[in-house]
């Protein structure tokens, strides 16, 4: 036990002595999580970015003018009148997301079309294909305001409104608690960077194998379990320290609270830390040289992180992929953290992710022990 503790203490000491690497372990997830969190909503009620829309009014009727006025009043849109050529060029160069072309005779044609007589006029939409998702939103707004504008024309100036009101509610842990997009962002990024630390833990073993230190360890009367176990223990502790610092920052700066079970959150973090440590051991065991192993380890980590939903939520994945990613440990870590942080779920909801993560850790650890090369070939 003396040797085990000494080896764990050494690993922790080496981690804290490497100021640059240690700082990066804390700063990188915080900076990137803050950026993504801000991008996807942030913690405050900041004004959302507007979508640039060009309107080419070839009609000049009261209908088209009402339509342009209604669209201009939308908070999410930045409407600019343009000529057809100018609008097309603006969309092509990416300065404008969507251009709507209201052809001559549109007002009269639209009124006739609504009443069931005559040929319906076209509204041509030019859009930037890289932002296709915003086209649907603008198409919906256009339809809504067109109805209003045509209705006003028919009703002597009174706009035609929808026959119902929509009320929506973001369902969070409880009433009064608003969704903080920093919560998911910090969960995802901390998972990613803790895994990167796991790579480093494995790399250290590979580097040590080249040095006399490894030979001295082999010459000492210690078992491979002491050697592997101490490495796993130290990596688990370091992972827990990183998670603690990162989430403490999120709590203090962005107000990210553990709305659910705190014990459950700690359990998910601890289980994921163990997965990270055993993942590092796999790298140490299966890697041949540090140079050759680093690249493939980073690639594997990025794939794990991507499929685990750290970058984008898994609901955006195709259905089959959503089902397939349950075989990815990072998915359980991110979902488990989300459940405990902003969904505000209880300890019982942490049991599944914790059990899954411990299962992964067990498999990784067993593989590492099985394939561990005590001697150099």
């Amino acid at each position, binding site marked *: 036990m003396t040797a085990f503790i000494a080896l764990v203490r050494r690993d922790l000491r080496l981690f804290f002595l490497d100021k640059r690497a240690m700082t990066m372990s804390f700063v990188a997830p915080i900076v990137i999580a803050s950026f993504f969190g801000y991008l996807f909503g942030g913690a405050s009620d900041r004004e959302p970015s507007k979508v640039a829309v060009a309107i080419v009014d070839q009609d000049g009727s009261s209908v088209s003018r009402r339509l342009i006025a209604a669209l201009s009043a939308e908070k999410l849109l930045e409407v600019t009148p343009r000529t057809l050529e100018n609008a097309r060029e603006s969309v092509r160069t990416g300065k404008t997301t969507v251009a709507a072309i209201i052809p001559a005779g549109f007002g009269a044609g639209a009124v006739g079309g609504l009443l069931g007589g005559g040929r319906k006029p076209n509204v041509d939409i030019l859009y930037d294909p890289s932002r296709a998702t915003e086209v649907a939103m603008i198409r919906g707004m256009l339809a809504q305001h067109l109805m209003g504008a045509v209705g006003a024309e028919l009703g002597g100036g009174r706009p035609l409104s929808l026959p119902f009101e929509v009320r929506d509610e973001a369902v969070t842990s409880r009433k009064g608690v608003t969704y903080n997009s920093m919560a998911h962002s910090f969960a995802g990024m901390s998972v990613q960077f803790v895994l990167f630390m796991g790579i480093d833990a494995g790399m250290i073993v590979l580097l040590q194998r080249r*040095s006399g230190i490894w030979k001295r360890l082999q010459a000492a009367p210690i078992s491979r379990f002491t050697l592997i176990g101490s490495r796993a223990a130290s990596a688990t502790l370091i992972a827990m320290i990183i998670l603690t610092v990162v989430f403490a920052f999120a709590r203090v700066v962005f107000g990210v609270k553990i709305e659910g079970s705190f014990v459950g959150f700690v359990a998910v973090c601890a289980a994921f830390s163990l997965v990270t440590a055993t993942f590092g051991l796999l790298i140490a065991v299966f890697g041949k040289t540090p140079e050759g192993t680093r690249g493939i380890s980073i690639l594997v980590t990025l794939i794990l992180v991507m499929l685990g939903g750290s970058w984008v939520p898994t609901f955006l994945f195709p259905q089959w992929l959503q089902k397939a990613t349950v075989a990815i440990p990072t998915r359980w870590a991110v979902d488990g953290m989300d459940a405990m942080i902003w969904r505000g779920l209880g300890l019982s909801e942490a049991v599944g992710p914790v059990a899954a993560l411990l299962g992964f850790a067990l498999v990784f650890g067993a593989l590492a022990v099985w394939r561990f090369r005590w001697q150099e070939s």
Partner: protein
Amino acid sequence: MLAATGLHKRYGSLVAVENVSFEAHPGEMVGLLGPNGAGKTTTVSMIAGLLAPDAGEVRIDGALVRGETDPVKRRMGFVPQDLALHDELSASENLALFGALYGMRGAALRDAMGRAFEIAGLADRAHDRVGTFSGGMKRRLNLASALLHDPQILLLDEPTVGVDPQSRNAIFANLEMLKAQGKTLVYTTHYMEEAERLCDRIIIVDHGKVIANDTLDAVRRLVPGVNVLELDIDNPGPGDWAAALRQLDGVEAVACEGRTLRVTVRDLLDISPRVLLWLRDGGYRCSHMASQRADLETVFLTLTGRSVRNA
């Protein structure tokens, strides 16, 4: 007593160590000599438990050494050829770690660390980061680290590689002190002069095989009558200019290093004149000549036909 019997190690088709056997007794320093790649490190690695031999066994006082956690391993200290130190940690942190590997802690560890620092001559640098040490200081600490648990047997794998003369002498003094204390030392090196200075018993290894195993004097007697002529040539030729000297009867080997020509001869009185005549006829001028007894380098050269450094 350390007894290695029939050690054998193969890597694929390469036989690294073939049937190596020897004994090392308390108060004795055994030198394992040979060129790089001869199998010295592999042999010591098998003794230290770093490598499992394909055949053969290692015993310490009759007890077989086997397994990772065999308590018999506590009787050995190992000084690897590569520095086994953490540059980022202080000297005392390094020693504390290596002591803990042998279960040492508390006052016993502190006392052992104190003794180790005295041996290394680094007591005043105990709390300094090892990364700030010179190569020689690191080598001394590397040696001291293996002594913490007071092993009965010390295995030293090329412990003076890259060491300055001052540290080398300090290491030699330490080894002689340990020998005087009754420790058993096994010392690998390809520096023949080190072995001649330190070792009581010489084991010459080449291509994994033991080609000589005896006391220093007995090994020297393996090449009776052999002497080395050392000549300073004022106008040496280009390249391997003296290669033709090897064709002379009685010339065992020829080595040129700058202006110095070393010729190994079987019979000093008979062959030396022929060498001098060859030089004179070739138009070479000799400003100085000396002869010396066969050293281990010469023995190796004579037994293998190759120089240790060129092997």
